[in-house]
């Protein structure tokens, strides 16, 4: 199976006020198309930093990310944005829906940002996550579980090559977490969606095809 997402010697050092803080140290990771990978580690081990780099939201200090065959080293902000739009769907910790828009408008926004026709894609995606009847509600009128399902719908409506999920169940109770993970697993199983999910929860991590552990900015098992 082809490799859809790969890192080679990925390193990130944050510098502020003259102080250098290493976050990642030479990470080599390969994710195959259709694979469900969970990255697990304690707080501060660099999971989120790795996800930001995989999603091209940040640039590495050294090393590179290869996305859909494109080496992103040296790409400018515009090119990274274009790649991200084309291939990446992002689910943030804390859902992060836009509070001023309805559920449907939140989902439609990712299509509009990509200048794609909206049509009934948002409604179909909301139906897929079981929330079509609540499409007109704003995030404040929805439960946390419902908000996270809308965030997943928003990430997947563009049919990205890779779904990156940053602690998608971090703010949820166990029952709601299970429902979210069931949803994610269904997309993986039924649509062959490639998923990279970071978590600090073993039970969440066990839902994936492959578990990768991180500590102190390095992968322990790959």
């Amino acid at each position, binding site marked *: 199976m082809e490799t859809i997402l790969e890192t080679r010697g990925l390193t990130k050092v944050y510098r502020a006020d003259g102080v250098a803080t290493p976050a990642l140290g030479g990470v080599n990771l390969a994710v195959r198309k259709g694979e469900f990978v969970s990255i697990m580690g304690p707080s501060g081990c660099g999971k989120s930093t790795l996800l*930001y780099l995989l*999603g091209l*939201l*940040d640039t590495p200090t050294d090393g590179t990310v290869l996305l859909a065959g494109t080496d992103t080293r040296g790409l400018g*902000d*515009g090119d990274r*944005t274009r790649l*991200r*739009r084309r291939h990446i769907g*992002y689910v*943030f910790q804390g859902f*992060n829906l*836009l*509070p*001023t*828009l309805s559920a449907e*408008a939140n989902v439609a*926004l*990712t299509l*509009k*940002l*990509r200048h794609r026709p909206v049509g009934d894609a948002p409604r179909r995606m909301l139906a897929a996550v079981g929330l079509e009847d609540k499409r007109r509600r704003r995030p404040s009128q929805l439960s946390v579980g419902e908000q996270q399902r809308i965030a997943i719908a*928003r*990430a997947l409506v*563009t049919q990205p090559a890779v779904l990156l999920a940053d602690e998608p169940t971090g703010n949820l109770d166990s029952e709601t977490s299970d429902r979210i993970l069931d949803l994610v697993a269904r997309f993986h199983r039924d649509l062959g969606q490639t998923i990279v999910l970071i978590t600090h929860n073993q039970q969440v991590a066990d839902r994936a095809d492959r578990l990768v552990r991180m500590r102190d900015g390095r992968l322990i098992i790959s």
Partner: protein
Amino acid sequence: MALLPLANILTRKVRTTITVLAIGVGVALFLVLTGLTSMLREIADRTTRVDAHLMVWPASDQVVVSGGLPADKVEKDLRSIPGVTRAVPVLRWPFKMAGRIQNVYGIRPEDWPFFARPGALVEGRPLEGGWEMVIDSRLAAAGDFHVGQTVERWGHTFRIVGIAREGVAGRVFMPIDTVSLALQQADRRASFFYVRAADPTRIADLRRQIADRGLSVFTMDEFYSVLASSFVDMDLVIGAVVFVAAFVCFLVVLLTIYTMVLERTREIGILKGIGASRTQVFGLVMAEAGLILAAGILVGFVMTFAGRILILRLQPLWTIEIPAMRFAYAAGLAAVGTLLGALRPAFRAANQDPVESLRYE
């Protein structure tokens, strides 16, 4: 995409309303204050709407009020210049009516047709002599005056004998000898003269000859500039007020948009995370500013109309004329100020690091 900027500005209704009002006030101030300068134009238009080519004043820079020329002597002197067919004296003096100071035009009754074309009188009759006056229709409406009514001024009783259609040179006409008498002048005086030339192409030559006699002389076209120069302070004050209003608009918009961007630091990170480019983030912020601007301009236009109505109700003899193009000019100025104020916050939002934004609490 248009939905997001609109939804964002409607989330903070009070702040948006204040910003819209600030822009509206700026627009209205500009339009009303510059509209007030049309008062000078209105005075100049009325003053020069006579069948004359030149205005002759004493040799000083005070053209608003003057009683300094011996009327008969100067008229004779002017008539002696070849090419001058008529020299009409006017004694202009302040006179309070309808709560405001008006300039009385003291004229010879036989000169009335020179000032008012046939049909100008809408009520009553022209001047004949004695303690009487003819007023214009606008003053009559403002003070609820009518023919036959008397007015006590200068220790005398004046009777209104006629009302002329608005647009005649003065708002109040009296016999020149009556004004001289009331002012206890020893002889007939004149503030200035209207001079008519036989050949309009020789006006330059006539000017020179009149000036050689130690008098100030202007063409009718030049009178507005001469009048305006007497009110230069008004232009300065209006200009200063308009500038301050525009600057305050700019600052309010800058502060509002800047605050909006700061409040939505995390949201900007999300937008970038789900695929928004720098250009799109920049465009979203500018679109919000644009919506506020549009509302502000609309409010400003409404406030202008309302302000004009209110001012004219309080001061019915004032003139506030606002040409259509000036509304476009005001909108343009508001646009420049608003969009300039939004530029810095929009650039900041566009260049925000998405990772830092997502980590922002």
